[in-house]
């Protein structure tokens, strides 16, 4: 596969771009692979990529029931940050963020990582305390964040109303090198590299069964035939429960719709990512000019990739309140994804109860930012059979032992 570059574009332009080959192959699946990864979302593809890059394992198939990147990876609002409170979270998200910094060069595919800065607004005293606490923690975790006052908030994002009647902005938790990236490009970039390493990415190939023998995985049944493997890695986000059931175990995961929407494009007016948790809304402006908006999860479990309108209403209300200038702007499109929520809202990376099966799931509403770091850590797990330090705390056993990694400090109550 040939390299992408400006020079190459000029050369191709001379021959009407006839020389561009496929970004990734479309092979028939083989009967057997060393590693089978189910789910060609960002996490599945990144796991495959780092298996090849870091461990030289390329006898890998990534099986995808639809089109690659078509799950939450291609539906999310692309916020990247690592300003988490708990040590294990900060470690893996910061690793991930750091990998994003160079991902375009690494993959030779412009994933448009844009470290434009992420601010989380504090609009209650309780939030102020929560974020100040996180700033304290981040300092010891080597995650560069700071507490900023309302004037600085306004300076960084002039369209925010800081003196709203209901929830004036009291300050913000600011991560200058958080930002966004182009979600599809992340999936495509990894896919292209995996393909280049000789891995098989098999689209339109749904896994319908998991074969085990004596407590060990043997392979999978798919809509395109039976495939054997030594190791099986399940990376299917909202469908993790289904796959676990096929393999005969259960997961502490619920699948719920999470919605997002975009406005019509307008000229640049917002250079940072803003999250407002008190009022439940967050927003950034894409390079196309659309305002990309997200809110909270729907209140019930479902597998339909859509949600109920009242959640959209809640989110939009919050944003019109925080950014009154948006008032006459129009929503172009709303959609939903099925997110995989664990009890402590932290992911699961670790061994499954069946030998040879590895899990990467539970990223819930916030796993886009984690794709490179999670792939890195999961590859280590699959390649060596044991979690390294990045993933060590995220194993399934934490639920049995009560070692939760709870990030929801802001969900405590105020007196």
């Amino acid at each position, binding site marked *: 596969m040939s390299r*992408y*570059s*400006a020079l*190459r*574009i000029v050369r191709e*332009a001379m021959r009407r771009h006839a020389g561009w080959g*496929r970004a990734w192959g479309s092979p028939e699946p083989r009967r057997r692979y060393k590693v089978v990864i189910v789910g060609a979302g960002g996490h599945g593809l990144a796991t495959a990529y780092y298996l090849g890059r870091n461990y030289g394992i390329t006898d890998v198939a990534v099986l995808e029931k639809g*089109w690659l*990147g078509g799950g939450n990876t*291609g539906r999310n609002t692309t916020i990247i940050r690592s300003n988490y409170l708990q*040590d294990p979270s900060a470690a893996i998200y910061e690793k991930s963020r750091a990998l994003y910094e160079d991902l*375009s*060069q690494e993959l030779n595919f412009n994933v*448009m*990582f844009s470290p434009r800065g992420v601010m989380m607004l504090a609009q209650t*005293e309780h939030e102020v305390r929560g974020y*100040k606490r996180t700033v*304290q923690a*981040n*300092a*010891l*975790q080597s995650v560069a964040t700071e507490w900023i006052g309302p004037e600085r908030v306004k300076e960084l994002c002039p*369209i925010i109303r800081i003196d*709203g*009647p*209901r929830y004036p902005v009291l300050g913000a938790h600011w991560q200058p090198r958080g930002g966004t990236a*182009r979600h*599809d490009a992340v999936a*495509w970039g990894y896919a292209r590299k995996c393909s280049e390493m000789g891995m098989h990415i098999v689209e339109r190939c749904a896994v319908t069964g998991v074969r085990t023998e004596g407590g060990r995985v043997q392979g999978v049944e798919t809509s395109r035939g039976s495939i054997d493997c030594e190791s099986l890695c399940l990376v299917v986000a909202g469908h993790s429960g289904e796959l676990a059931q096929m393999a005969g175990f259960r997961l502490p995961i619920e699948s719920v719709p999470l919605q997002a929407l975009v*406005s*019509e*494009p*307008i*000229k*640049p007016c917002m250079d940072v990512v803003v999250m407002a948790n008190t009022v439940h809304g967050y927003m950034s*402006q894409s*390079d*196309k000019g659309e305002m990309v908006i997200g809110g909270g999860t729907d209140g019930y479990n479902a597998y339909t990739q*859509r949600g109920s*309108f009242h959640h959209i*209403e809640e989110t939009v*209300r919050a944003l*019109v309140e925080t950014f009154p*200038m948006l*008032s*006459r*702007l*129009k*929503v*172009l*499109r709303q*959609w939903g994804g099925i997110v995989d929520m664990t009890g402590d809202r932290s992911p699961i990376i670790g061994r499954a109860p069946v030998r040879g099966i590895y899990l990467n799931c539970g990223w819930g509403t916030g796993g886009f930012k984690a794709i490179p770091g999670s792939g890195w850590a999961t590859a280590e797990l699959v390649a060596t059979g044991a979690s390294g330090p*990045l993933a060590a705390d995220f194993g399934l056993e934490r639920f049995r*032992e009560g070692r*939760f990694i709870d990030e*929801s400090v802001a969900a*405590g*109550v*105020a*007196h």
Partner: protein
Amino acid sequence: MSTRLGTGGSAIDRSRPVHFTFDGRRLAGLTGDTVASALLANGERVVGRSFKYHRPRGIVASGPEEPNALLGIGTGDRFEPNARATTTPLREGMALRSQNRWPSLAFDVGVVNAALSRFLPVGFYYKTFMWPRRFWESVYEPLIRQAAGLGRAPDAETRDPDRYEHFHLHVDVLVAGGGIAGLQSALAAGRAGAQVLLMEQSPHWGGRAQVDGVRIEGDPAAEWVARAVAELEAMPNVRLRLNATVVGAYDHGWMLAVEMPEPGPRERLWKIRARRTVMATGALERPLAFAGNDRPGVMLASAVRDNLMRYAVSPGDRTVLVTANDDGYRTAIALVEAGLSVPLVVDARPECNGPLPRRAREMGIRVAPGRAIAGVRWQRRITGVDVCLQAGEGSALEHVPCDAVAMAGGWSPAVHLWSHCGGRLRWDEATAAFRPDPQFPPTGADGQAAILPAGSADGHSRAVEVLASAHRAGVAGAAAAAHEGDAGQVVTAEEGAEAPALAVWRMPQSADHRLRAQTFLDFQNDVKLTDVELAAQEGYRSVEHAKRYTTLGMATDQGKLSNINGLAALSHTTGQAISAVGTTTFRPPYTPLTLATIAGQARGDLFQPVRRTPLHARHEALGAAWEPVGQWRRPYVYPKAGETVEDAVRREVLAVRSEVGILDATTLGKIIVKGPDAAQFLDMIYTGRPSTIAEGRCRYGLICNENGFLIDDGVVARLGPETWLCHTTTGGAERIHAHMEEWLQTEWWDWRVHVLNVTEQFGQIAVAGPLARNLLERLGGMDLSREALPFMHWTEGRLMDVPVRVFRISFSGELSFEIAAPAGRAGEIWDRLAQDATPYGTETMHVLRAEKGYIMIGDETDGTVIPQDLGLNWAIAKKKDDYIGKRGQMRLHMAGERWRLVGLLTPDGAVLPEGSLAVAQGTNANGQRRTQGRVTSAYWSPTLGRGIALGLVDRGPERMGETLSFLQPDGSEYRAEIVSPVFHDPEGERLNA
């Protein structure tokens, strides 16, 4: 030149001119015009620039599918970007601005992109801008952002002065679309007796039929439309709304619509629960894919016809029609009938001998069968077209001068609502369109099809079939709601016969690369035929990949015009049938929806309800500084003139410690739990045993979640044999109420327990301080002596003749009472107390409780803390078989080495920064500094005259006297000694006084 004709125009009122400006120039239109028709009438061809290449673009369509004519409308606080000219009514004084051009519409610097277009193939940005490494964020991306976007962003301080509102409605049948199909459906359902809501997006009833020359019941369609509307208006069970678009279909038949009422709020959002929705949304005409099809002056044939018939505007004097079906001829005929010239009809079909082509020929219109357009000549306006064989590669056979082109590519049913909520589509070869698949409808609350397609939205093109399907849908909709009245007969219709259409996806059939590179599929986003081909060549073959890689269909029209032609291009390139390529998912809203409309009235002061206690006005009068606590407003502190917040807190704390203070405690949750099984229920909810509280007494209780973590605390009082009153935290009232209900409803649904949130029924006042009893006794009416009302007891009586409950409890460590009075009467008591006591706010309350070492939910807890961590083992009934959280607390990690509650004192009395972490030796495996504790609350203590802090420290209570180091983000360090968390009155003498 486009101009207004001397006669005609069903929608305009020639006697009432309307003045407006376009890019600062003064122009005039007529009442009834859309912005688009007014611009066309003034000869404005170029109305905007495209997204990527900044090509000049003109009006293409006449409805919500318009991709090009997006304008900035209005000024100041009423400025709206990206308004669609085709659906915006013209208003007096309107200020219109073209978009995405700099410095001006005619001369735009961005067109260099067009000149460089071959170097900017689809997806080029994924392949470059990667070097030098940091240039993406500092150079390339800012440039791209500046060039992208369409309309100007409203100014940062814009405050929309208009009103938006929400309507809620239940109906049997919602009819979306007021064309002849919608009218026929509404008539059938209305006559049958159903509650019907009929909505039409435009300001006109009757849709296309009137423009297309259909006759119904022997009369021109317009006459029948008038009769039908009159009949519907006379029905009490039918509501009709013009300017109202059904924009979304959701689960269980829940539908969303938006209306531009006149007069009324700016927009109105309708939330409709419809048993059935008749989807009579019509069809959208497709553009044809030929080189130069994006030039200003190339329009959909139907749009040309609409402008002619409704607004008496023609886009040109000499219009070439290019078509692949008979329907397009209606435009040619209408133009000639209006006295305009149609030099040529280019028909891709080798045979075109249907009645309409025959009629056109009879009128002297030249028809060229089997032909295609090889190019549109353009010199700041269209000067002509080159005509070639459809079967060829595009060598021009003749040049035909003209100033406008009308294109008729066939019709696609507007199936969006069907798809929004899971309905599937099937590709119908015969009509070359995606039609609703009746096998897989979106389902309603009853599990049946919630949406009934009718008319051309269901793929019918003949008026007879359109009306018949609409009648059926109307009858079925009514029947679903058990309205079986006489729906009447379907009306008869006649229209000219049509010969079969040809599905033409590109012109000419084997267009060479040069032509394909000038053939636009998505006008707004500048996606060309060659772009889709290149995407497929690079493996972006699934429709979703192709869409995302090329941005086809992602513009503000959401693919209404581009979708099918794009799919066809993909199908052609990949060699798959269109049915196998499939389509991307249609998502709500059908047409863009204003954000403020979604927010409705909930803006500004009405954003969320502000909850005020019955004492609110009194706090205001006292000059309270407010703290929002959830939806409540609570006094944070009451600064007096000249006092800082710190001064005021100090004064209030000392007043409580030495005299007496009063606090508005109304917001604390109050939940009544009552019933024969209330005792066992409460023993499950609380870690302790509320069942053993004697009547007349109270006890502190803890509530945990399933995982054992502490989520709320408060005093529980036993009111009667089967009745308890549970106090929660302010933030906990709704949450704990819901928590109790959830357990009752999902797990213990057979327990006889009622739970009632009575928080707002009472005004509650805490009276705290050594003089508290003294003061209360002076109020008169109750014996509150130590003997009559010992600590942790409560009693009922009348204070100052106000019925009250008095609780002898304390959250300050002082002698303290809480008085609960009916909400309406609490003020009387407050007023009396305030004469002798110091009102204090939440911050003072925090300081007082911290001095006493009392924990605060949300400070000492954060969802990861169990009661045992806080030294609250005494509040756990260890012998109890079960309570919510017990099993969680038995997990491995819940015992042993945990961070536990301690007090922390700095040697110099300084206040530790809240949230500070106590560092331990070295770093962990991820290179993070190890920690061994954290500060959970820290205050300046006026009582002790120094800083105090509570914290959670690894095995803290076993390490009294040790000194910890708290490293700050700025590199500085605080040191603090581990001490008991109770700083004030450890023996509790004052409390029990």
